[in-house]
C-alpha cells in the first residue's frame, strides 16, 4: 500500500536519493528508496527495526556502496564525487565510536584538522560547542572515560563544528540528558533556519513529531509515506492522532 509518493527530487535539494538498492547477501535492505531533503528542512526518517534507515544513512555518507540507484549530497553524486559530497556533511553515527585515547578537546581538534579547518576558526567553534553541551569540564577527559550520553554529545559537536550544509544523524539524542537534548534541538533549529538540510533517523517519535518539519517512513527498504505530520494524518484519516498512532497504522498496513 503506497500512501504518498515521492516528492519531486529537485537538483537543488542538498540530499537526493533516487531508487536506491542495497543488499547484504540475500537480505535486501533497500528496495528502490527515493526521497530528498530540501535546504532548511529537518527530515525525520522513521521505520521499524531493520527497515533500512541506518543503511540509507551509511550510503549517504559513503560508508556503504549502493547496489543500484544514486545518492547525491549538495549536487555531488556520492559514488562519483565522494570527496566533494563529504565536504558538505556533518555525520553522527549510530554507535558512539571515537578515538578512545584522545581527550574530548583533542578529538574535536583532530576532526577539525581532518576537515581542513583553520585553528583560528575551529578553536572558537570547539569552545562554543563544549559550552553548549556542558562538556567544558570533560574537555580534558579521555574519550574512553565518557558515558554513552557524553560520547554522543562529543560526536554531535564534531558533526556541527565545521558548519556543514548537510547534517546526517543516526539516533543523535541517544543517551543525552534533557538539558543536552534541548540544547541540541535549539542548535539544529537555528542551523536549519540558516538553510542547513538535516536528516535524522530516530525511534523517538515524540521528538520527531515536535522537531521535524517533514517525515519519511520506510518499511522493508521502501518509502511508504512522506510528508508533514498533518499530511500523514490525512493519508490515514487519523484526525488529530499523534505521530506514534499514524506510524503504527502506516507500518501495520504495510506488513
Amino acid at each position, binding site marked *: 500500500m503506497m500512501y504518498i509518493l515521492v516528492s519531486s527530487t529537485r537538483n537543488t535539494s542538498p540530499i537526493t536519493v533516487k531508487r536506491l538498492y542495497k543488499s547484504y547477501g540475500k537480505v535486501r535492505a533497500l528496495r528502490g528508496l527515493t526521497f530528498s531533503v530540501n535546504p532548511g528542512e529537518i527530515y525525520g526518517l522513521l521505520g521499524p527495526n531493520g527497515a533500512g534507515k541506518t543503511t540509507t544513512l551509511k550510503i549517504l*555518507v*559513503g*560508508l*556503504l*556502496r549502493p547496489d543500484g540507484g544514486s545518492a547525491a549530497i549538495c549536487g555531488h553524486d556520492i559514488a562519483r564525487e*565522494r*570527496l566533494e559530497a*563529504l*565536504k558538505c*556533511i556533518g*555525520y553522527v*553515527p549510530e*554507535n558512539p*565510536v*571515537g*578515538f*578512545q*585515547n*584522545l*581527550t*574530548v*578537546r*583533542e578529538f574535536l*581538534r*583532530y*576532526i*577539525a*584538522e*581532518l*576537515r*581542513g579547518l583553520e*585553528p583560528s576558526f575551529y578553536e572558537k567553534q570547539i569552545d562554543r560547542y563544549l559550552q553548549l553541551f556542558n562538556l567544558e569540564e570533560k*574537555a*580534558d*577527559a*579521555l574519550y*574512553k*572515560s*565518557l*558515558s554513552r550520553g557524553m560520547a554522543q554529545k562529543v560526536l554531535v559537536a564534531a558533526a556541527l563544528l565545521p558548519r556543514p550544509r548537510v547534517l546526517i544523524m543516526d539516533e543523535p539524542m541517544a543517551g543525552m540528558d534533557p538539558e543536552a537534548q534541548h540544547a541540541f534541538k535549539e542548535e539544529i533549529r537555528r542551523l536549519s533556519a540558516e538553510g542547513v538540510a538535516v536528516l535524522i533517523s530516530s525511534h523517538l517519535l515524540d521528538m520527531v513529531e515536535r522537531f521535524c518539519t517533514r517525515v519519511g517512513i520506510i518499511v522493508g527498504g521502501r518509502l511508504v509515506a512522506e510528508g508533514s505530520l498533518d499530511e500523514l494524518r490525512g493519508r490515514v484519516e487519523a484526525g488529530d492522532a499523534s505521530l506514534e498512532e499514524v506510524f503504527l497504522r502506516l507500518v501495520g498496513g504495510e506488513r
Partner: protein
Amino acid sequence: MSKAAVIAKLLVKEQAGPLLRSRAGKILILVMLFVAAFNVWIAVAVEKPAETGLRGFLHRLGVYAWNAPVILGTLLSLAYYMYLLRGRVGVLMSDAEYELLLAQPVTIGEYLVAKMLADNLLFAASMIFVYVFLLDVFPGAKPFLLALSMVALVASFISLYYFSTILLARTRGKVVYIRLACASYLALATLHSILSHGLSALYAAPLYLPLWATAYSISISGDRAAVAGVATISILLAAALALVSARISRGLYPEDLRPPRIGGEVKASQLIPHGRRNAIRHVVLWRAAKGRGNRVFLVALLAAPLIGRLLYLAHSLGLEVNFPVIVYMVAPLAAAETVMLVVQASLGGEMAQLWIYRVYLGDMTLLSPYLLAKYTMYFEEVYAASAAFLAAYTLDPLLLGIAATGLPAALLLAYASLRLTAWLSSRRRIVRETPKGLYVVDNMVVLPVYLAAFLASEVVFTLPLALPAASVASVVLAVPLFAWAERSLAGALYRCEVRC
C-alpha cells in the same frame, strides 16, 4: 553443573556460530577434518628422517625433549607470574555476557565452569590447524598422543588462568599478599637456578607436566604409556582446579570479574598539529608510539641489550642456559603473537574508527602510510629487541642486522594484518570486547598470517648469519615495498565497507 553445560553451549555457539551455521563453514570443517585425518595417516604410515624440519633446527640450537619443558614452561608460566604481579582482575567477557547472561539466575561458579569448558573446546578445536602443522614439522611424532597432550596443555593453561583470576578477585584489597607470594616464589626459583647452574624447573612448574607430555609426544624417544599417563593426569588436575575455582568463587559478583571502568580519566589536552597530514601523523603514529600499548615494546627494546649483558655475565658465572637459543625460539613466536595483538588492536581501534576518516577525510592516501608505519613499528620492535639482546650477549654487532633484515617482513606482516582486518570488519559488525577479542572463526582467518609471521621470522633470524649484505638489501627493498603497500592499503580501506 548441567546449567554450566547449557551456558558453555551458548558461548560456543556465540563464538563459532557463523562457522557452524553456514554451508561454507560446514564444508570448511569437513575439509579440515579430512586434511587432519590424512596428515595423521601420513604421520603414522610414512617414516620420515627424524632430523628434518623444525626438530632438526631445534637440535642444532640445543633444544631437546628433556630441556624443552623447562624452557617453554618458563616462558609460558611467565604470563601467569606477570598476571599475578600486576594484580588486576580481568575476565574477558562480552557486554552480552556481562549485562545479559550474568543478570540471569546463574552462579559465578557455573559461569566460570561454562567459560572454561567453552574456552577449552574452542581452543582445542582451533588447535587442529597447529596440530596438523606440528605433524609436518616434527616427523616421527606420536599423532594421537600429541593431540591428547595439547588438550592437556590448553586445559591446564585455561584452568590456571581462571584460578588466578578468582584468587585475585577474592583477595580484592589485599592483592599485595598475592604479589608478595608470587615474588617470593620467583626469588626462590632464581636462587635455585643460581645454585643449580641451570634454569630452575620451579619457573616452569605450573605447566611442566603437560609440556613434558607435549615434548615427548613430538620426540622420537619417549615412552608412549608415560606420555599418555602424564597427559591424562594433567587433564584431571586441570579439571580439579576448575572445580576448585568454581567453589572458591562463591560470593563473588560479576563486577569482581570485570571491574567497571571508572570515568574521569583526565590528561591535559594538546594541540593537534595544523594540516591534515601532520594531524594524522601525530594521532595515528606518534601517539601510538608514545602510548601505553607500545610502552612494553619500548621498555623491552631499551632493556634488551642490558639484559643480554647481564645474562652473559650470569652464564659466565656458571648458569648453564643457552639464552640465545631461547631468543631464537621465542622471537618468531613473539612476532606471530604480535599478529594477533595488532589484529585485535586494529579491529577495536582503526577499523572501528574508520568511519571518521571515510566521512571527514574521504581519501585514504593520507591515512594509509601512517597506519602501515605504525603496525610495521610493532613488528620491527620485536626484531630490534631480539637483535639488541643477541648482539649484546654475543658482542657480535653483525647480529644487529636482524633489525634491518626484519624490515621487509615487518612491513609485509603489517600490511597483511591490516588488509585482513579491513576485510574482517567489512564482513561482520565489530563487537567490542568479545571474549577473546576475536571470534573463533576470525582466529582461523588470522591463522595463515600468524603462521606466515612465524616462518618469515625464522628466515629473518637466519639471514644475517649467512649473508651480511642482507641488512643493506633489506632496507633498500623496504622502500619500494612500503610505497606499494601504502597505495594498495589506501585502495583497500577506501573500498572496504566497515560495518561499525
